[in-house]
C-alpha cells in the first residue's frame, strides 16, 4: 500500500511544478513596470529603483525564479499592500472560514445528489427521473452568485428565517475558542449551543448556494454510472441468484457506480473553489475568496497571486486525495499498481 501511495504522490509533482511556474509567470506578465506597480502611483524614481532591487527584478529571469522558489519554500508569499500583513498569515487565518463553507456545501450536495441519482437510475422514466433531469439542467444554468442572491431575498427579506448575510457570526455573538477554526466544530467542542445555532444560521444559506451549484454534475454522473452498472452482467447474475433488490443495488451496483462519481469529485472541487469566491462576495463571508476579491479591486497583487497559488496547491492535494480514495474503493487499482 505504501508504494502505491508514493507512486501517487509522485504523479502530483509535475502538476505542482507547473502550478509554481505559471504563478511565477503571472507576476512577470504584469502590464507595465512591476516595480512601479508595487511602489504605487506616488513613488519617486529612487523608491521604484529601491523596490526593483528589493523585489530582485534587476536580476535575470532564472535568478528571479530561483529566488521565488526559495521564498516559497520559506512560506513567504510577500506582503499585502493594503493591510501590510504577510499574505501567508492572512490566507491561513481566513482558510477555515472558506473550508467550513465549502465542505458543508459539498456534504449537502453529496447527500442529495447521490440518492437522487440512484433513485433516478433504478426508476428510469419515472417522475423522480424527470425531477433529476430538471434539477441537473437548471443547476448547470444557474449562475452561482444569482442563486445566492435569490436565497437571500427569499429567506432573509421575504420570510425572515435567516439572519442578515453579513459574515460568519452575528455581531451579538463572539467566536468560539479556536481549535479547528470551523465555528460549528469549535462551538460543539466548547458545548456552546447558542453559538452553534447562530453560526449554523449564518452558514446554511451560502452552503446551500454552493450545494445547488455542485448538485448538478454529481447527480448527473451518479445517474449515468448507476444506469450503466445496473445493465451489466454481474448485476443480472446477482438478480438471477435471487438476491433482494436492496442487496443488489446497495452492495453490488452502488459500490461500482461510485467510481466515476469519485472521479467527478475532482472536477466538482475545481468548480467549488471558484464558486466559493462568488458566494463569499454575496454573503460577505470573511474567507480567502473575499480576501482575493478585495485585493483585486485595490490592485494589490501579492494577495491575488498568493491566493491563486494556495488554491492551486489545495486543488492538487485534493486531486491526490481523490486518487488515493479511488484505490480504497476499487481493489483493481491497488492490484495494478
Amino acid at each position: 500500500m505504501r508504494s502505491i501511495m508514493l507512486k501517487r504522490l509522485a504523479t502530483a509533482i509535475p502538476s505542482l511544478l507547473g502550478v509554481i511556474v505559471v504563478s511565477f509567470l503571472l507576476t512577470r506578465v504584469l502590464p507595465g513596470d512591476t516595480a512601479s506597480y508595487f511602489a504605487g502611483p506616488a513613488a519617486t524614481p529612487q523608491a521604484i529603483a529601491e523596490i526593483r532591487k528589493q523585489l530582485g527584478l534587476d536580476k535575470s529571469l532564472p535568478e528571479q525564479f530561483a529566488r521565488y522558489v526559495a521564498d516559497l519554500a520559506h512560506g513567504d508569499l510577500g506582503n499585502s499592500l493594503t493591510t501590510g500583513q504577510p499574505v501567508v498569515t492572512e490566507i491561513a487565518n481566513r482558510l477555515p472560514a472558506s473550508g467550513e463553507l465549502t465542505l458543508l456545501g459539498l456534504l449537502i450536495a453529496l447527500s442529495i445528489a447521490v440518492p437522487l441519482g440512484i433513485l433516478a437510475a433504478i426508476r428510469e422514466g419515472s417522475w423522480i427521473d424527470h425531477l433529476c433531469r430538471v434539477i441537473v439542467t437548471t443547476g448547470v444554468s444557474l449562475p452561482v452568485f444569482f442563486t445566492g442572491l435569490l436565497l437571500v431575498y427569499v429567506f432573509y427579506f421575504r420570510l425572515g428565517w435567516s439572519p442578515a448575510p453579513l459574515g460568519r457570526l452575528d455581531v451579538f455573538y463572539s467566536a468560539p475558542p479556536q481549535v479547528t477554526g470551523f465555528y460549528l466544530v469549535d462551538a460543539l467542542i466548547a458545548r456552546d449551543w447558542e453559538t452553534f445555532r447562530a453560526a449554523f444560521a449564518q452558514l446554511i444559506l451560502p452552503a446551500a448556494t454552493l450545494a445547488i451549484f455542485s448538485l448538478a454534475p454529481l447527480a448527473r454522473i451518479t445517474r449515468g454510472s448507476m444506469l450503466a452498472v445496473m445493465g451489466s452482467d454481474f448485476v443480472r447474475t446477482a438478480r438471477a441468484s435471487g438476491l433482494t433488490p436492496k442487496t443488489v443495488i446497495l452492495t453490488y451496483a452502488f459500490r461500482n457506480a461510485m467510481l466515476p462519481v469519485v472521479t467527478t469529485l475532482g472536477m466538482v472541487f475545481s468548480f467549488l473553489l471558484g464558486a466559493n469566491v462568488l458566494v463569499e462576495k454575496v454573503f460577505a463571508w470573511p474567507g480567502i475568496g473575499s480576501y482575493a476579491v478585495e485585493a483585486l479591486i485595490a490592485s494589490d497583487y501579492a494577495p491575488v497571486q498568493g491566493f491563486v497559488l494556495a488554491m492551486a496547491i489545495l486543488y492538487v492535494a485534493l486531486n491526490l486525495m481523490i486518487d488515493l480514495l479511488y484505490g480504497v474503493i476499487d481493489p483493481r487499482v491497488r492490484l495494478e499498481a
Partner: protein
Amino acid sequence: MTAFDTAVEAAAPPATGLSATLKHARHVVTGNPITGFSFTLFILLLACALFGSFFVPYDPLATNTAVALKPPSLHHLMGTDQLGRDLLSRVVVGTRLDMAVAIFSVALVFALGGISGIAAGYFGGWTDRLVGRLSDTIMAFPLFVLAMGIVAALGNTVTNIIIATAIINYPLYVRIARAEANVRRNAGFVQAARLSGNGEFRILLTQILPNILPIMMVQMSLTMGYAILNAAGLSFIGLGVRPPTPEWGIMVAEGAAFIVSGEWWIALFPGLALMLAVFCFNLLGDGLRDIVDPQRRT
C-alpha cells in the same frame, strides 16, 4: 459518426450546395422540439445582441433620478435601478457584450485548442507531449481562480476576460480534438491523401479538420454557456467590465446591494437573462450532440 454520415448520404437525394445545407439544418432543428426551441432562443438572443440597441424604449445609460428604484410597471417593464435607468433597455443592450465575450472566447479557444489538439493527435511524439503538458498544467488550477489570476496579471479589460476564458477552456478542446484526430490518423481517406502526395499539414487541414468539425461544433455550443457564466462571474467580482456599461454580471452585482432591502428586480432580470442564455446554449449543445454523436445520448 461514420454510420450517421452514411445514413444521411443514403437518405438524402443528391442535392447540392445551398439546398443540401438548408435541408440538413432543417433536419437538425426540427428533429427534436427542445433543440428547435433552443435554436429559436438562440436566434432571439442573437437578434438582441445585433439590433437590441435600436429598438429599446430608453437609452440604457440615461439616468433619471425622478424614477429611481421603481418596481416593474407599464412604463418600465423591468423597473428602474438606483439611478433611474430603465432595466429592460439595459438587459437587452447588455446581450451584445455578453454574447460577444462568449463568442470571441469560444472562437479563440477553438482556433488554439482545436489546432494544437489535432496536431497532437495526428503527429503524436513531442507535439503530443508538449500540448498534453500544457493542458495538464492548466487543469491543475481551479479554473475560475486561474481566470481571476490571468485577468489580474494581464490587466483589467474585456479583451483579457476573453483571453482568460479561452485559456481555461483550452484543455477541453485539446482533449476532444486530440482523441478525434488520433483515431483518424491512419484512416483510409488519410492514407489515400498521403499516397497522392499531400503534405502532412495539408492533410491536417483538408482531411482531418473537416471530419472533426461537427463534434467540435457541439463542444463550442456546450462551452458557450460556461463561457458566459465565467465572464459574468468575473465581472460580478469587479473584473473587466466597468460601470455604467450594461452587462449582465455587473448589473447583478449592482442589484446585490438592494436585495437585502427588497428591491429584487434590479438583480433578478439580468440574472434571469444570464440563466436563459446559458440554458439555451446547454440545450442546443445537447441537441446537437444527439444528432452528431447518438452514442453519447443521455
